[in-house]
């Protein structure tokens, strides 16, 4: 008689398994419940549509913005800015992170400085970057770069420090010189970790591009949100925020899929 109770408790035990289907079902239900609560709250008239339009109104607005091309144009501009800013930051951060993760001398020269800069709030740089580089794409690149580069350097340094000391010892006993050890052992060994760092910092890049576009821009997703505020188009604002979440989710999943493809040998899947 006690069997069903015991079974239900088991689901709430630490580490209890729920299966893939169970996981998807639970995750989807949470989304659905939230949308339903949103629909109920707006449908019953508790909240004015100016503050919170109904899910249906947001959906219809987004469909019309997609149909007339505004949505895709805005998304394209923001995506381009992220791509350039993020690639610029990553291309610079990877070699610097590898070097300061491997050489104490360079660590002493660069790590404390990076740590110091990284605690300066990125938003505070917005006025300065406008002063330096105007309100065009260059300023957006700069904000994304400031927001991601310094974090990436420190995270990649950490990825590199996790390379086992015996791997480097192995390289030495094989008579490899330091440069070869970096290229043939340290970098490939740290690569899965570096990829993970890039995936995480790409998420921040989405935030920084919108921050930059909210303040001074004539295009992009953030710009559309600011304009919509002027005209009290709450449905557009909410639709765009949700759309940004979806874009973030898609890029994250794409990076994860690439990771599974690139590092098929890894212990992570087999563990």
């Amino acid at each position, binding site marked *: 008689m006690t069997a069903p109770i015991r079974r239900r408790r088991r689901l709430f035990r630490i580490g209890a398994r729920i299966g893939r289907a169970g996981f998807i079902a639970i995750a989807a239900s949470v989304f659905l419940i939230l949308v339903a609560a949103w629909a109920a709250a707006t449908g019953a008239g508790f909240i004015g549509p100016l503050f919170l339009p109904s899910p249906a109104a947001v959906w219809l607005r987004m469909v019309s913005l997609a149909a007339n091309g505004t949505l895709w144009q805005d998304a394209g501009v923001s995506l381009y800015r992220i791509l350039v800013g993020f690639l610029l930051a990553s291309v610079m951060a990877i070699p610097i992170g590898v070097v300061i993760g491997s050489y104490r001398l360079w660590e002493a020269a660069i790590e404390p400085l990076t740590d110091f800069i990284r605690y300066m709030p990125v938003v505070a740089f917005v006025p300065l970057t406008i002063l330096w580089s105007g309100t065009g794409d260059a300023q957006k690149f700069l904000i994304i770069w400031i927001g991601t580069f310094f974090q990436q350097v420190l995270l990649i340094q950490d990825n590199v420090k996790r390379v086992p000391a015996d791997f480097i010892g192995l390289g030495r*006993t094989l*008579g490899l010189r330091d440069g070869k050890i970096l290229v043939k052992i340290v970098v490939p*060994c740290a690569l899965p970790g570096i990829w993970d760092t890039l995936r995480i910092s790409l998420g921040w890049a989405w935030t920084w591009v919108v921050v930059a576009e909210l303040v001074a821009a004539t295009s992009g997703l953030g710009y559309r949100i600011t304009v919509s505020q002027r005209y009290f188009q709450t449905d557009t604002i909410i639709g765009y925020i949700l759309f940004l979440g979806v874009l973030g989710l898609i890029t994250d999943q794409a990076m994860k899929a690439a990771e599974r493809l690139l590092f098929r*040998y890894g212990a992570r899947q087999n563990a």
Partner: protein
Amino acid sequence: MTAKLQITALSKTFGTGARRVEALHEIDLSLADNEFVSLVGTSGCGKSTLLSIVAGLQEFDRGELLVDGAPVMGPGLDRGVVFQTYTLLPWLTARQNVEFALKAAGLKRAQCREVAMEHLELVKLAKFADAYPSQLSGGMQQRVAIARALSYRPKMLLMDEPFGALDALTRHQMQELLTRIWEEHRLTVLFVTHDVEEAVYMSDRIVVMSIAPGRIKTTFHVGLARPRHQDMFSTREFIDLQREVIRTIREETMKAQAA
């Protein structure tokens, strides 16, 4: 004939000032050509440090270290090392891991594959040549590491508790495999272990180190006939020697605890 490895009055300290610790004090040790010597001792006696110095991975303060009569100037291909941790590069297959060493040793690309397969055969892992390390057990990974260290024909093999992380059953299999290979091919081996049974089974000579500072306390010659097999574990001669070595180590442990 000069010794393969000649260590004379070698000392090593860590730290400076009040935290200065003498890890190794005036170590004298020589290994003859094709001799299998084990270093045993209570943990902290510096046996791994000594091996690491012979490998050229750590510096020493005073003394002399010669391989084939020439001073050691750092790590090199003349001394193959098998580490305690699994050091197969995870993005390379078993065969590619061996080839990695062969390429570093300057072998021609065409030869690498053949020599790598030959050595995987030696450790009975030819079937797993294309497996990645994550698909291999700990014992198999160490076998590949041994194959890799042997593949480029070093003058001597340095092993730092290579079976220390393995379960007892696998460890016995590895000891037997290594003994077979060694008895057939012969090579100078310096072998660090904390497993006395392992040391007695495999070695020609067992060197017991004392602690704080690390120095050589006693040397035991192992008179057991070769080829050796694990049935010897229960013979009078084996057990007596094992007991004697353990007793010597225990004296050191007691001394360290009393200090």
